[in-house]
């Protein structure tokens, strides 16, 4: 078993490193520290942040891959999440079954020993009956235990010695940040997940799909795809937008004309079509270079990477335009003139005096774009220019479930699972970005 990095894994962990250093640098300044405390003072923002944290944790858990060298020659690549869910990954049923069902959803023809054929609902292979109550109890207790331990540790860390005092202020809601809400949401999420996890050993908690694959597992695996598209695209967008936007605003003249021409041209092409054109070309390119990837998982990963790059290259124009306008304004200010007078070089002025004053625009655009990108993935996968059809993603789940709605009776659970998973993520992202915008946007300052 060896650690194996897919391309997107490398990017995700790079992003984590960038985010950690970025927030450390931001929080050094007391002003922005105060702003972030302001953001988290809102209970809604705190709760959303906790939910987003859970999604991020799943995405990261699914971004640590191992190559397992089997004696019979195969070398499957599995992630930590796959290992935790191995009981569902490796044991698939024959076909559809409803959530918590013990039998298949449709009747099959069975020929018994006497040669008589009857239509029966076949029992599911990997379901243990009668576990509902005991497994539920086990799951909920385990969830509680994990939540209590982790919250206790956090309380201990924040209490700076006086644990019972800290407990009291948190419980009464008298802390500066709404920790009570945070702990509440955390407990709720942990208990729910622990319950679903323990139950998934005895049942298919969200049913199975057409080929008998577990829907809960598929929905969990889709988290990585959604979160990656939402976050990594920004990693592509930001350098382009910041470099071009600030250069245009600072140098003006022909540099400005050229950059403006570039983004006007790009933004005049309808987004979906530009992405579609890019993805079509990427498909042809990948079909002609089968040597770029060794396995299906690597191929779908490469395709995800290309999709992220295409999304990034097509979506930097809006931010670039805003940064250019703001740079035009800042470049006229006294502190920039002073820096020039002191003989500070152009690039240093841009990096040290202009970009730090643009952080609020950049942060707002990161959080605003996230939910849009998660939703866009679903539409793009439907159009046929999204992630690889073999990859787990909410878009692919919806795409398959669409035809199942026409069945009689309806197969609703795949759609339900992708709906719930997506809705919670996007809602949390939207609520959080509202708050970030409210606090950081100077137009809202009193």
């Amino acid at each position, binding site marked *: 078993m060896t650690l194996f990095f897919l391309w997107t894994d490398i990017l995700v962990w790079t992003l984590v490193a960038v985010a950690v250093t970025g927030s450390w640098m931001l929080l050094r300044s007391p002003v922005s520290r105060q702003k972030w405390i302001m953001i988290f003072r809102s209970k809604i923002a705190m709760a959303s942040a906790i939910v987003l944290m859970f999604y991020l944790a799943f995405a990261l858990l699914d971004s640590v891959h191992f190559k397992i060298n089997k004696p019979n020659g195969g070398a499957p690549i599995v992630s930590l999440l796959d290992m935790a869910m191995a009981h569902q990954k490796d044991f698939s049923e024959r076909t559809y079954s409803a959530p918590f069902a013990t039998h298949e959803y449709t009747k099959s023809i069975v020929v018994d020993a006497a040669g008589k054929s009857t239509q029966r609902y076949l029992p599911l292979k990997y379901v243990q009956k009668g576990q509902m109550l005991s497994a539920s109890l086990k799951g909920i207790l385990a969830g509680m235990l994990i939540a209590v331990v982790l919250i206790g540790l956090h309380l201990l860390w924040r209490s700076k010695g006086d644990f019972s005092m800290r407990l009291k202020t948190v419980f009464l809601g008298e802390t500066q940040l709404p920790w009570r809400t945070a702990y509440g949401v955390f407990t709720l999420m942990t208990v729910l997940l622990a319950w679903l996890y323990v139950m998934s050993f005895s049942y298919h908690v969200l049913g199975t799909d057409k080929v008998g694959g577990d829907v809960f597992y598929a929905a969990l695996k889709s988290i990585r795809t959604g979160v990656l598209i939402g976050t990594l695209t920004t990693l592509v967008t930001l350098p382009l937008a910041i470099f071009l936007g600030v250069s245009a605003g600072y140098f003006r003249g022909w540099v400005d004309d050229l950059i403006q021409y570039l983004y006007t*041209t790009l*933004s005049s*092409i*309808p987004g979906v079509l530009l992405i579609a*054109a890019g993805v079509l070309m990427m498909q042809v390119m990948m079909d002609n270079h089968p040597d770029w990837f060794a396995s299906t998982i690597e191929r779908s990963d490469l395709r995800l990477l290309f999709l992220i790059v295409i999304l990034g290259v097509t979506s930097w124009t809006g931010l670039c335009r805003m940064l250019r306008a703001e740079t035009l304004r800042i470049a006229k200010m006294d502190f920039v003139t002073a820096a020039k007078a002191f003989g500070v070089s152009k690039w240093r002025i841009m990096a040290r005096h202009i970009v730090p004053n643009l952080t609020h625009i950049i942060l707002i655009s990161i959080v605003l774009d996230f939910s849009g990108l998660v939703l866009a993935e679903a*539409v793009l996968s439907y159009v*046929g220019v999204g992630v690889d059809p073999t990859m787990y993603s909410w878009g692919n789940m919806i795409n398959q479930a669409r035809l199942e*709605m026409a069945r009689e009776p309806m197969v609703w659970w795949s759609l339900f699972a992708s709906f719930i998973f997506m*809705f919670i993520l996007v809602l949390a992202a939207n609520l959080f970005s509202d708050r970030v915008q409210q606090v950081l946007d100077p137009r809202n300052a009193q």
Partner: protein
Amino acid sequence: MLAYIIKRILYAIPILIGVNLITFMLFFMVNTPDDMARAQLGAKQTTPAMIAAWKAEKGYDKPLFYNTEASGIQKVTDTLFVNESLKLFMFDFGLSDANRNIAEDIKARMGPSLAIALPTFLIALVTNISLALLLVLFRGSVLDMSAMIVAVMIMSVSGLFYIIAGQVLFSKLWHWVPISGYESGWAGVKFVLLPVAIGVFAGLGSGVRWYRSIFLEQINQDYVRTARAKGLSEIAVLFRHVLPNGMLPILTGVVVIIPSLFMGSLIMESFFGIPGLGSYTIDAINAQDFAIVKAMVFLGSVLYIVGLILTDISYTLFDPRVTL
């Protein structure tokens, strides 16, 4: 005015050339015509002769930008770029890979696209603005707060779910409207009803929030305070002062998309089986028909630029401060 419009149209030409250059690079330089031939013919048994034949049939056998074998002006004109991209300026879209006339197809499919997109646009505009005005009238109240929460929730659901839920509820369970299909004329109303309703509803959240924020920005201005001070009722203030002044930012966001309505909606049309330009594009993408995708990219950019010009013109009509 006329001089300004001509200037703007001339301005659009370099942008459209840029658009063509980008699509050209995407379609012909990232992948050579040889790659496309291999992809179209199937990777297995392609001989160089077959590839050459396919390229000759599609006219892809010319050099990219500069033809050394031709003479005089033909050195530049007898190339792929001029043949494949610049002729788009004449709205000559050529033949699709399935040998159909693209321009004819586009003409025939514009109608159904508009039949969905135009009612959706107009109804959404009126509903969103009225709801936003209502919320601004009751700003800060429980109604306003709960409406904003509902708006965020509406925004957080993927459009695909609205379509699927709508089809299941209204067509499959209640049989109010047919599940998909299209007819031209008044007979088609029953097909149009559901897509329009879903389109309006799906855009409700973000729309109402956007208009509300525009009106709220106006409501704190001095002229509104003056209007209140002279004794106008709150409703009169809203309709006589806030709404007309809010129209300017609304124009910027709205006029620019009017021409693009011709392009139709990709997912709506393919879900409801409407033979418009949106489903045309999706079919082309699925069939990997580069000629159609290229034509649609060009058409979309032209319509967007027309939208930008219209925005500027509408400014002069609505804002007396702006003169051209």
